């Protein structure tokens, strides 16, 4: 028996025009959480895809339990006990927990499904993980975090020893993250090895035993977590000292630019009021499901409002559709860039010009030269890394995609920009670029509303913080009086 569950030795992989991995080493011991970190496009997902059989390596050796192994396809990797829990969960919403866990390998009695055994087996797995769920529940009725637990259950039901988690906490609340970590500890005790990919470096302290940093396809360092700290990891990741993680700019707030009074929308937004002053960033904090995104969407006209008023520079404005919001100068960077922000199959320049077509058309006829000029300016302004304006957005990294979403709102003069989780799932460097941009907007006197689930960035960037819980505003704090404990207290006030 080898000391390692898996060893990846001198792995190289090239794609046309890019060397994605250059002699990278990585290993995993039983009973440990080994974090794999790096900026978007650093090669960490390529490495994981090689280990799980999605890609084949060009060079190098894969040892599983000390034996050299080749994975021609994902199935072969699964058979060797390797399992990925993806960022986007792969469950059938209409099937029950038990049916999902045993999909494709249902226990059978002669010709028929053995429903009873399937449910019992699923129950046993859930008990092992200490998860209180009924295996006959429809997966579509579960929260994202519970669905993730079903995925983990599915993984261990196949006797997977190596579990790869790709950004498992990006959609979870603080409480749910704690639950996930409890489960990870169970897995560790049972001798599973976990490869943990996350952009949330602050989590690593709670969970990681070792951490490997990859940059530009190169293996930079593998460290015991106790011998290192977040700053050191960031330094390794970006290859330079980031001056400040949160480049806050102090300003004296002026008069109120934008005000929301007693807004109600659906079941998620109840009597919400807040205001943004000139020269400040207003942060909106709260747990998942607190109604923040719904508030933003209702203000922007993406969803209908049931009541309330919105004022811009003291004048009431009525917004029923995004079109009307944009005409009055209220823009929105939506929470989910792929679902709501981008035409992913279209080129960069067409995404940038989409909300600005009137500026690049002459009596309805598109002027491509003007479009390219507009997009090139945006690409320069935000240092978007793309081979050209004609590149399909799909082929950009997450951070650069996010910059395209932001960039399309920087062309027209804005009065208020609503940022909903603008840094979710993007790397440290791109995050800082977005923070700097928000600071720049605030200096220009544009109202900046900044929704985020990550408390450190809200505390680091916002000048004033509104906390929401269960669709209501529970606090309106000055940055100086806010800290993690205070915010969490207000964020869980009705729970």
């Amino acid at each position: 028996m080898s000391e390692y569950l898996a060893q990846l030795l001198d792995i190289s992989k090239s794609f046309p025009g890019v060397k994605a991995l250059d002699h990278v080493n990585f290993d995993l011991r039983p009973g440990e959480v080994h974090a794999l970190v790096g900026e978007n496009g650093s090669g960490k997902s390529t490495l994981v895809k090689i280990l799980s059989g999605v890609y084949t390596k060009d060079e190098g050796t894969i040892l599983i339990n000390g034996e050299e192994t080749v994975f021609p396809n994902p199935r072969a990797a699964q058979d060797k006990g390797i399992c990925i829990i993806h960022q986007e969960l792969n469950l059938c919403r209409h099937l029950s927990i038990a049916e999902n866990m045993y999909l494709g390998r249902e226990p059978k009695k002669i010709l028929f499904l053995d429903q009873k055994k399937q449910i019992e087996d699923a129950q046993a797995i859930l008990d092992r993980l200490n998860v209180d769920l009924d295996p006959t529940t429809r997966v579509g009725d579960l929260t994202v975090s519970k669905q993730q637990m079903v995925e983990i259950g599915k993984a261990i039901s196949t006797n997977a020893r190596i579990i790869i988690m790709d950004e498992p906490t990006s959609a979870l609340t603080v409480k749910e993250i704690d639950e996930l970590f409890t489960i990870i500890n169970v897995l560790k005790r049972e001798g599973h090895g976990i490869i943990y990919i996350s952009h949330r470096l602050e989590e690593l302290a709670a969970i990681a035993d070792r951490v490997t940093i990859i940059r530009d396809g190169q293996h930079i360092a593998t460290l015991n977590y106790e011998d290192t700290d977040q700053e050191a990891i960031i330094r390794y990741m970006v290859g330079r000292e980031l001056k400040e993680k949160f480049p806050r700019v102090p300003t004296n707030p002026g008069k109120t630019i934008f005000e929301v009074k007693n807004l109600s929308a659906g079941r998620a937004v109840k009597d919400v009021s807040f205001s943004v002053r000139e020269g400040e960033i207003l942060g909106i904090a709260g747990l998942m499901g607190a109604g923040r995104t719904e508030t933003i969407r209702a203000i922007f006209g993406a969803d209908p409002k049931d009541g309330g008023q919105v004022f811009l520079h003291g004048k009431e404005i009525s917004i029923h559709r995004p079109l009307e919001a944009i005409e009055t100068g209220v823009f929105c960077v939506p929470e989910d860039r792929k679902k709501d922000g981008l035409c992913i199959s279209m080129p960069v320049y067409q995404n940038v010009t989409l909300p600005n077509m009137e500026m690049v058309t002459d009596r309805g006829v598109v002027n491509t030269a003007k479009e390219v000029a507009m997009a090139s300016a945006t690409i320069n302004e935000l240092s978007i890394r793309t081979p050209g304006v004609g590149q399909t957005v799909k082929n950009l990294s997450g951070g650069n995609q996010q910059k395209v979403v932001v960039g399309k709102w920087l062309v027209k003069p804005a009065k208020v920009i609503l940022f909903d989780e603008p840094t979710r799932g993007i790397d440290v460097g791109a995050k800082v670029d977005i923070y700097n941009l928000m600071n720049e907007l605030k200096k220009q006197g544009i109202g900046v509303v900044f929704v985020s689930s990550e408390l450190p960035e809200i505390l680091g960037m916002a000048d004033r913080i509104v906390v929401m819980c269960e669709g209501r505003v529970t606090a309106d704090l000055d940055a100086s009086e806010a800290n993690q404990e205070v915010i969490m207290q207000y964020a869980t006030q009705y729970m």
Partner: protein
Amino acid sequence: MNQTAVEPKIRTGKKLSRQATQLISTAIALLALVVVFTLSNPNFISMMNILNILKQASPIIIIAIGQTFVLITAGIDLSIGSVIACSGIVAAICMRAGWPVLIAILIGLLFGVAVGAINGLLIVYGKLPPFIATMGTMTTVRGLALFLTQGIPIGNLPKGFTQIGTQRTWNIPNQVFIMVILALIFGFILAKTKTGRYTYAMGSNYEATRLSGVNVNRTLITVYMFSGFLAAWAGMIMTANVISAAPTAGDGYEMDAVASSVIGGASTLGGEGLIPGTVLGALVIATLRNGLNLSGASPFIQKIIIGIVIITAVFIDRFRRND
């Protein structure tokens, strides 16, 4: 417009080059068909036969252009076959009532636009899936055609009208001119105007387009109105060509339109499609029909072959894309 400087930059995108390859491969398929049929029957390549193919293809090309717009928005328009019949009938009724030909044509075209508008309204405000909405209007409009004529074709149409479908100008059939003009206009709209861009954007990501401030409702209704308008034009041409308005005309044409678009590179999932591709796709089908006819293949065999061609074309595209 000074585009020479910017074109090379844009071409770094994979999308355009893939669309270009799609166009080229459809053109090669068409050429291959021409070569094969010419070898088996030298008469195939005669000027008369080529004009004949273009003439036969004209109505399909015209409706396929509309269908391409609709497919790009990730929709489908099943009503166009019925609109072909009924718009011809509406125009014929007006002419038989003694109205001027031009007015009658205009009313026929308006009828098509109105059906398109109803489709669009049902989809946008009724929130019906395009398949269901247009299937409903398909049946309704076909029923209307049968009711208005009591099942009997309307003949005796004025010469001023029938010459659209029977006469030639500079030895080229009039309907080919109409087809070319419509293809140029709508090809321009799709490739070069705001409406065209919004059409692609809606098909690529409807919600992101709406949140970008695009008037998606209006654009979607416009797209279905285009489709109805073009179907009505096909109706005028076909009615003029056979010198009578039959309530059963255009039956099943909506599927030929889908097939032409798809062979030409449109995706039923939305976001993709080009008018030149669609024109080539329709020509592939028309050439197949004509060539098989000339070589004496039974019409039943033709259906089998065309079905296989559609599947093969899309299959090859899928295969290449996964690569």
